[in-house]
């Protein structure tokens, strides 16, 4: 039996998937006659994941209200997904806004309670979470602000643990916990309650080798967002400006596995060395063709990485 099970973040399909299920395909296809109709509902999108061999999915925080509104309850969504072959909603994604400001902790924790409940209701076990807001307009954070952000995450982790969930810190190359703050921030985390989601491209763009990071922190890394990039070690002026995640010129930050500079072969050797077991997530936000990217990534896993460790 395989040690690794693959999940995929659903954010590559759109900011939201509008419909649970289309009732009449032709209502959309007639007059349009394009492939747009294939991407409008969860019913089809979930089947693509399962068909490609990804039995787990993740949801973004901005999908939460719509899941609740369209399915009535998060559990109904999980049931809907399971009927189509998804084994688990492996996690959600959130942002710890205002974590750097102690005076805002109470209200910030209150706002994040929703994602804890949502994740628990989905049956998820982890919340991948950006440790503070974006760098633009907020950074650079002072030492005290970094400490406050870590303290916030520890408290959030305790609250998550009550529902058997672990928050996994997910750093972004454009976040205010950035290259200069990362290690100091990690040192102040209580690893009993907080883990790390190693986003291979985000870490490499920020300025660190994700393979070495995993070797150094393999106990702390509880989850992955595997994705590739061609912007390793990006300069500050690209990473820290307004809206940096969306390049003004339309260039892609993120690519399917094996198309960029991340050393996935090296990472897989370490997964084997450290005997990583369980869910491993992919996230390829930014692709112009989610279906192609999902299949190319799975091909790379099957043919290049699985022979090393699976």
């Amino acid at each position, binding site marked *: 039996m395989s040690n690794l099970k693959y999940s995929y973040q659903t954010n590559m399909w759109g900011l939201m998937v509008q*419909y649970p299920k289309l009732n009449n395909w032709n209502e959309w296809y007639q*007059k349009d006659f394009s492939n747009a109709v294939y991407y409008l509902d969860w019913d089809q999108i979930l089947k693509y994941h399962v068909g490609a061999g990804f039995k787990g999915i993740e949801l973004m925080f901005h999908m939460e209200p719509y899941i609740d509104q369209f399915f009535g309850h998060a559990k109904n969504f999980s049931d809907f997904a399971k009927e189509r072959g998804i084994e688990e909603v492996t996690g959600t994604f959130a942002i710890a806004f205002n974590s750097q400001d102690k005076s805002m902790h109470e209200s910030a924790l209150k706002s994040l309670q929703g994602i804890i409940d949502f994740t628990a209701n989905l049956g998820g076990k982890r919340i991948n979470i950006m440790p503070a807001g974006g760098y633009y307009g907020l950074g650079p954070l002072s030492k005290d602000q970094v400490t406050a952000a870590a303290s916030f995450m520890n408290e959030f982790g305790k609250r998550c643990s009550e529902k058997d969930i672990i928050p996994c810190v997910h750093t972004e190359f454009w976040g205010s916990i950035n290259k200069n703050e990362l290690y100091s921030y990690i040192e102040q985390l209580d690893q009993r309650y907080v883990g790390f989601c190693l986003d291979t491209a985000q870490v490499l763009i920020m300025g660190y080798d994700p393979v070495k990071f995993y070797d150094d922190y393999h106990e702390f890394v509880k989850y992955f967002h595997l994705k590739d990039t061609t912007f390793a070690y990006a300069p500050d002026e690209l990473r820290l400006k307004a*809206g940096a995640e969306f390049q003004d010129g339309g260039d892609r930050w993120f690519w399917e596995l094996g198309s960029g500079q991340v050393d996935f072969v090296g990472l897989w050797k370490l997964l084997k060395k450290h005997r990583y077991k369980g869910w491993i997530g992919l996230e390829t936000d930014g692709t112009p063709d989610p279906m192609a990217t999902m299949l190319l990534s799975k091909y790379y896993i099957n043919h290049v990485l699985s022979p090393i460790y699976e």
Partner: protein
Amino acid sequence: MMKFGCSLELINMRTSGPNFIIKQSKLYWVEMFKLVAAAGFKGIELPYNPFSSDPMAFEIGRCGVPISAFAVNAKYGSPKEFMAFLNEVGIEEVTGVHINANDVMLEIIASGQDMSVYFNLFEKMGMEAIDFLCSLGSKVLVVSPTPEIGWLERMVNGDLNGEFAAKTTELLKKLVAAAKEKGISTAIKNEYWSLMRGKAAADLLNQVEGALFSPDLAHIQITGDDPVMVINAHKHQLANVRFSDTDFTDEVGNYKKINAEIPVQGNQKVFSDLGEGSVDLLGVAKVLKDNGYDGWIICESKKTLNIHRALLKMRWFIDHEIVNKLGGDK
């Protein structure tokens, strides 16, 4: 002489599809403005949403969409530079900005506040939009006056048609006055899911002195009214007439539900590309021409599955099915 502009709400950010991500880059919008101009639309109407607690609004507000003063400053330098850019690519005017009370509701829900802050937030959004209009040299504030009935029934205690409606009227009066002081007109837009639908919209217009009417033709038809009759009834108080189209029949009372524009039961496609639905657009255009309407007609193919094609189809439709059939006089 009628002028045909284009609503940027043509571009649906709240959906999924191949290459949706490009819509979040400035490049997409820079190119889109060029394509809008290339399709012959010299005026554009912008949606305006200053909020960021609602996660969808947060996502949209941090990329290249000129959705707020903050977004324009962050991505285009300043309103002045934004207008200079628009003029350079061939767009002469921002015909107006559209604020939607439903965005206030989504902000309240997302931020965990209660409805006690609703009217303050709505007013704040309106005042900010008026300042934004001034900064762009634009002249019309288009207002969707209430959130969806579905949200109101869930969130508001008491009689919606009593205190809530009265406060809405008072707020609109305030916005009309504040806008007027700065040389801006306020036009109330109708939606089939609004508390102010059908006759209620007409009553509201009577109560808010100085307010104009920005009729959305598809919404009028879905409500069950005849767009030609409604436009005729309000022919002397029109601004930014929205040419939109539909074939949708609300068979399951979707107008009372949350996310009314995304039906789960029955028919699901609410809007048609302009000219492909059953709204009598030529009939409305005749009323406008006969009454000497000289304001903007804002064209929209809401939720189109192919934005670029929709732009060209709208231009063809306006030229061949409206202007030519009216005798060639734009």
